[in-house]
């Protein structure tokens, strides 16, 4: 394992998008004006596509190696080397990161292409692609960086691009506020992430092996066992800290609030960043550090519970949303919850598998919804859509496939991956049947809200105004093409990870060098089949309900929404009021602190300073007074104050010279007294 192969082309996978970003960012405005938008598109798409090809080459290169030797490394230069800390700028590829770079460059490339159509009318076309490329770069850095710090660079980098792209249409404060929210919530997560890094480094440094490089952490991970800080095991604490980072980035409870708001950005951005790639970084990170998580069962439990809770929780919210993208957003949060559930039961392979399939179908869904929004002239409210299947056949069909996939219809990608997760939730040593039950419930909910959306958008009467209706049209080729490819992926991607009952997963096998042998024999195959059937059944139930309500209209949705006095519905609809609570406690609280700080500064500290100045001034004033008035006053008071108006020596006579002389005498007397008192 200690002979990684230096492979120079790896850097180009990462750096090419950066070059694209630099070209567009620095020259884009000029290019767009002088040459045209096609130049921008070229600079934007070409690097990503080349990266994709290089990633394929990397895949092939890896395949050529023996499974246990499957990794390549590209060291650029030493980045930080201080004391025991040695961090290189180095990229590495192993089976896990290969999956990621393929997803990032592959789906990312498709979305780039899609964007050339979607964003064609925008004035800041170049800016959009500069950030999109920069995002791709950062994401690639995140997944290929060979150490935690480099990963963190990508980690924050994607956050930055996400911020910039959410607020892309910055003229509206709603967008910029959403961007700020995303960034700041992510920062909270990052705060945990860095602390996790520090803790790991510190703990290993105590043992003489301070490092942040993944492979070395893995090598020395056993040394961390038994160490404690504040009465908590270091491994547990470190993984928990890192998991805070993951909740931020992957929008898990309690840091999920930013993702739905992030839908303010252009739709391809939602597809790329907020569905396919960036939000999965948390899952990737947990998988990457699986050896630490596996060593910390408490953390694993937290991860599983948080994942499960998020999955259910956001699924319920998604039930009540009317914005086409918001439904997808909550669905994303929910699906990410599934991935963490998988990770939490130590089924990292399943998590990554779902990550990959999810990338396909969710990207497809988002892009499809983008296509719809494009056609509807920017309208996102599903209650104003309907019957679009005739106007946009490609969009309809691809969307249909993706909905089937996410609902877990057998033989689609979603079916295999979700089923794997549920099975692991049931059978893994870290799991419990309760998790499975909840997971299946979530699956039913997913099916319900996805089909609700599907029916609302594509079936029934069109509820849009006549102007919009007249302009309904299918999207341009650049947008349709990726949709089709993604739809294909939504089905096919699942087949590389067939469950064991269908002959074993090649995907799991591929990841085996990373995660070790997967848990196979924990349950009888029959049990697996039964469970699978149950989950499919629950999903079908969800479908059927949606069908009744929104297609056949036999069942009024109001009957459900008015359950429990409408309380539940209002909770769902208002996202459990989490935003309001956060606004009140955290934002309000911080601002209050800030105001208090500033107030202290202005009034207390300055008051003390100015006060001492004033006291000094006062003392001086008093002294001046003393010098000129007190003596004078004494003298004058005692004196008869009636003087002849024509007294020619008034000054000499009333001048304080007597007082001055008193002072001499007084001083001599004082000296004598002191002398007698202290030194006699």
């Amino acid at each position, binding site marked *: 394992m200690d002979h990684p192969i230096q492979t120079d082309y790896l850097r180009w996978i990462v750096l090419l998008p950066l070059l694209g970003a630099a070209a567009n960012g620095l020259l884009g405005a000029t290019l767009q004006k002088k040459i045209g938008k096609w130049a921008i598109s070229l600079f934007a798409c070409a690097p990503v596509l080349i990266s994709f090809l290089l990633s394929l080459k990397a895949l092939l290169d890896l395949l050529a190696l023996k499974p246990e030797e499957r990794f390549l490394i590209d060291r650029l230069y030493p980045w930080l080397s201080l004391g025991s800390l040695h961090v290189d700028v180095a990229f590495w590829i192993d089976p896990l990161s290969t999956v990621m770079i393929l997803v990032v460059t592959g789906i990312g490339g498709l979305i780039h292409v899609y964007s050339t159509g979607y964003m064609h009318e925008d004035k800041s076309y170049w800016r959009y692609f500069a950030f999109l490329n920069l995002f791709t770069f950062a994401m690639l850095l995140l997944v290929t960086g060979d150490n935690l710090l480099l990963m963190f660079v990508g980690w924050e980098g994607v956050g930055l691009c996400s911020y910039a792209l959410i607020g892309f249409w910055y003229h509206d404060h709603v967008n910029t506020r959403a961007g700020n929210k995303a960034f700041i919530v992510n920062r909270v997560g990052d705060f945990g992430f860095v602390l996790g890094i520090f803790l790991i480094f510190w703990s290993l440094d105590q043992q003489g092996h301070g490092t942040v490089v993944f492979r070395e952490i893995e090598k020395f991970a056993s040394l961390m066992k038994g160490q404690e800080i504040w009465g908590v095991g270091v491994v547990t604490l470190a993984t928990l800290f890192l998991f805070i980072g993951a909740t931020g980035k992957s929008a898990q409870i309690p840091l999920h609030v930013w993702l739905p708001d992030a839908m303010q950005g252009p739709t391809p951005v939602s597809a790329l960043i907020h569905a396919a790639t960036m939000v999965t970084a948390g899952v990737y990170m947990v998988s990457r550090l699986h050896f630490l998580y596996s060593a910390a069962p408490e953390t694993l439990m937290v991860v599983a519970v948080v994942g499960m809770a998020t999955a259910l929780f956001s699924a319920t919210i998604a039930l009540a949303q009317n914005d086409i993208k918001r439904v997808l957003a909550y669905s994303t949060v929910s699906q990410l919850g599934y991935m963490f559930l998988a990770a939490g039961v130590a089924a990292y392979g399943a998590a990554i598998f779902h990550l990959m399939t999810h990338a396909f179908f969710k990207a497809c869904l988002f892009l499809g919804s983008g296509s719809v929004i494009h056609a509807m002239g920017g309208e996102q409210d599903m209650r104003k859509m309907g019957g679009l299947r005739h106007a946009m056949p490609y969009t309809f069909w691809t969307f249909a496939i993706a909905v089937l996939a996410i609902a877990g219809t057998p033989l689609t990608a979603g079916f295999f991956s979700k089923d794997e997760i549920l099975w692991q939730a049931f059978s893994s040593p870290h799991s419990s049947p309760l998790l499975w039950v909840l997971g299946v419930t979530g699956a039913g909910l997913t099916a319900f809200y996805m089909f609700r959306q599907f029916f609302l958008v594509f079936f029934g009467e069109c509820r849009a105004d006549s102007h919009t209706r007249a302009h309904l049209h299918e999207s341009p080729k650049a947008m349709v093409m990726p949709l089709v490819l993604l739809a294909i992926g939504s089905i096919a991607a699942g087949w590389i990870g067939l469950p064991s009952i269908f002959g074993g997963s090649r995907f799991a096998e591929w990841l085996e060098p990373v995660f070790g042998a997967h848990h196979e024999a924990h349950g009888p195959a029959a049990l697996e089949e039964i469970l699978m059937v149950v989950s499919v059944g629950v999903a079908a139930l969800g479908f059927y309900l949606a069908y009744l309500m929104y297609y056949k209209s036999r069942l009024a949705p109001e009957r459900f929404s008015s359950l429990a006095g409408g309380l539940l519905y209002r909770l769902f609809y208002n996202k459990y009021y989490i935003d309001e609570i956060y606004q009140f406690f955290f934002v309000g609280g911080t601002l209050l602190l800030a105001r208090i700080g500033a107030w202290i500064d202005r009034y207390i500290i300055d008051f003390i300073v100015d006060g001492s100045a004033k006291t000094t001034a006062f003392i001086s004033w008093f002294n001046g007074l003393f010098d000129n008035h007190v003596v004078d006053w*004494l*003298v004058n008071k*005692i*004196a*008869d104050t009636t003087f002849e108006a024509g007294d*020619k*020596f008034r000054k000499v*006579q009333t001048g304080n010279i*007597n007082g001055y002389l*008193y002072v001499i*005498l*007084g001083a001599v*007397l004082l000296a*004598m007294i002191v002398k007698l008192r202290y030194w006699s």
Partner: protein
Amino acid sequence: MEFATVIFYLIAAVTIGSAAMVAFSRNIIYSAFSLLGTFAGVAAIYVFLGADFVAAVQVLIYVGGILVLILFAVMLTHRIADVQITNRAVGRIPALVVVGVFLSLLVQIIRETPWQKAKEIVYAPTTSRIGDLFLENYLLPFELASLVLLAALIGAAVLSRKELKE
């Protein structure tokens, strides 16, 4: 009580009494004239102490010079025609207290201090001794004093000259 002692007390009484007049009188003319008594009394004390030259100087300069100056000044700055020529004093009581404390302190210390004792106490004319010393050991102070007087002379002229017309 010896005759000399009686005389001493007499002189001291005159000296102090007239000095008190100087200090306490409400009329500046009275004060100025009382000063005569003080100066004369002090001169007499000098004689008692066998300092004939100093006594002479005291009479000459103080009585003949300074006192006359003071009287002139008083006359010049007050219209004689005024019925009352005041000599205002203020804060008598606190001043009396301070000065009283001071005096008691001084007397206390004077009584307690072991002053240097001369080997012998002589009564002899001092004028020639002083004259010798002025031209021998004390030549420099003597000359310096002349410079002081020159400066005073010039100064008095400067201060009292009306205005410069160039």
